[in-house]
């Protein structure tokens, strides 16, 4: 079932190729409840290939040392690996290496920004930081479809500064109401924060249009790339966003490593969030000067092995071909939505079958709570996510408190998609729902 866009994306992976690359993932080689594991929860976190696990282990076995300090050989090796990892990740998303800040995860990246702006609003960072200052009358615009990580930190920032938080509403299919976006984004808007791809609906937001609207009024743009960086060809420079965040663990890397991208001149002007060692120039007992980005945002001992493992993950994705992964997941996503949509009593949240969407689908099963759906599928060895997926307002918009989400990645086969469709088709009869 080739997707119409497949030729633009590159040639999709094939099931035969996927069956071979799956062997690289130790966690996928297991049975759960007596069945072969069908892992369809990569939207929450991905499994890791052996090369990533090996890279982290090799660092500790050979090169473990403190970075950016010490004159000995191991310290130099560790620093080189750490900075090479930054360069690898920067190339992967089309930006310069001094524009990549290591964080623990995307959530920390957004909080770093929000607290940096908060500090600017308190006068830290001087006139260089003026464009980050928020005060009463200023507005932050986000959307109804955000993960809590791209909502709660802005609520807090608004509360600390007196700014107002506004939301672009979504249509019944989860797409943004762009006429409302035009109306909401105006001269009072200082920041527009939105997700590239919804973790609930798979909607791919029109980044270029939103960036144009924001930049026309001089507002900064923050892109949540958690569901795009792992799955699609991403060039943040071309997209022209001012900041972006993503998490390593959703893209084959370990937990504990994430990325904040910021345009260099912005990062150099933003006051730091976490302060302490490694981010300073001169320290006296009274005051301190700060290094340029990215170091000014990397206080304390860094996530060295995780950063190196993230680079190994990026190397793995690059070797497979992100364009081919994107095309494959587009096919899997279409198959998933087609299959779910055909089941009586199952409602797909988000765009209908055939619409432009990512390789995931969340459903509401009439008469059966998502937790029960997930439990039933788990009994078949199928791992899906149940609950509100950290997006309560969006679920409320759809009139449900919870949903069941299947999310694919490069290692999933069409047979696995068919297994979850088959399982979903059996849910209502098991629970006795007519």
């Amino acid at each position, binding site marked *: 079932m080739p997707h119409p866009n497949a030729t633009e994306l590159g040639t999709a992976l094939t099931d035969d190729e996927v069956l071979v690359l799956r062997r690289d993932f130790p966690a996928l080689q297991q049975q759960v409840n007596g069945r072969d594991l069908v892992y369809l929860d990569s939207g929450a976190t991905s499994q890791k290939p052996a090369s990533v696990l090996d890279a982290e282990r090799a660092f500790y076995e050979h090169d473990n040392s403190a970075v950016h300090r010490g004159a000995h050989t191991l310290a130099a090796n560790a620093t080189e690996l750490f900075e090479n990892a930054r360069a690898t990740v920067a190339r992967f998303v089309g930006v310069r290496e001094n524009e990549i800040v290591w964080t623990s995860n995307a959530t920390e990246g957004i909080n770093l920004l929000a607290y940096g702006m908060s500090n600017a609003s308190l006068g830290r960072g001087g006139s260089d930081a003026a464009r980050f200052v928020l005060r009463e009358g200023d507005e932050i615009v986000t959307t109804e479809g955000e993960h809590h990580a791209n909502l709660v930190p802005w609520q807090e920032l608004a509360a600390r500064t007196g700014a107002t938080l506004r939301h672009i509403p979504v249509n019944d299919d989860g797409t943004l109401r762009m006429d409302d976006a035009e109306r909401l984004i105006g001269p009072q808007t200082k920041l527009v924060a939105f997700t590239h791809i919804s973790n609930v609906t798979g909607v791919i937001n029109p980044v270029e249009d939103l960036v144009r609207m924001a930049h026309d009024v001089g507002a900064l743009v923050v892109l949540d790339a958690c569901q795009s960086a792992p799955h699609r060809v991403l060039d943040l420079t071309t997209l022209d966003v001012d900041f972006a965040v993503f998490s390593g663990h959703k893209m084959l890397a370990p937990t504990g490593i994430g990325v904040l991208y910021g345009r260099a001149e912005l990062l150099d002007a933003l006051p730091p969030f976490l302060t302490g060692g490694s981010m300073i120039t001169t320290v006296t007992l009274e005051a301190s000067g700060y290094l340029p980005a990215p170091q000014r945002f990397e206080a304390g001992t860094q996530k060295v092995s995780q950063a190196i493992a993230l680079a190994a993950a990026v190397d793995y994705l690059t070797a497979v071909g992100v364009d081919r992964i994107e095309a494959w997941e587009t096919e899997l996503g279409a198959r998933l939505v087609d299959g779910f949509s055909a089941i009586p009593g199952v409602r797909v949240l988000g765009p209908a079958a055939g619409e432009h969407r990512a390789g995931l689908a969340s459903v509401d099963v009439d008469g059966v*709570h998502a937790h029960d759906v997930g439990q039933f599928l788990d009994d078949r060895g199928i791992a899906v996510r*149940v609950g509100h997926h950290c997006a309560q307002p969006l679920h409320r918009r759809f009139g449900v408190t919870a949903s069941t989400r299947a999310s694919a990645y490069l290692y999933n086969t069409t047979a696995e998609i068919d297994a979850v469709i088959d399982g979903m088709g059996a849910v209502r009869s098991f629970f006795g729902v007519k």
Partner: protein
Amino acid sequence: MASGDLAGLYQQVILDHSREKHGFGLAEQADASSHQLNPTCGDEITLQLHVAGGVVSSVTWEGAGCSISMASASLLHDLAPGLTLAEARERIALFRELMHSRGAGIDDEDELLGDAIVLEGVSKYVARVKCAMLAWVALEADLAQVDPR
């Protein structure tokens, strides 16, 4: 085909209670009322306690959630009437012990839980224990309101 464990978790009596929801519907007046939310899945319940002469006369509730949480509230509604407040506390403690037994169950006193003993299978699924406990935690909060200790 479902495994034996799954059939044990979702016994027919549980599925029946999850649909029938004994005691569903809030009264205008109650001696105590408590709202409980499980933020990880959104299950929620409001549970009212009605007391007469130091004894539970009834438990009424409204809520939305998975079959385990709904069935558990329905079973609690059937169990509670006629218990003294102290007995109600004891049953909650016993039910909690059952839920934390990791499938081992409780030996002696399981008849004290009435039909709610069918929820024993939940204790094998650590992630679902909170679902089963929701109504019982609400009753515990109600008891603390009418009889603070």
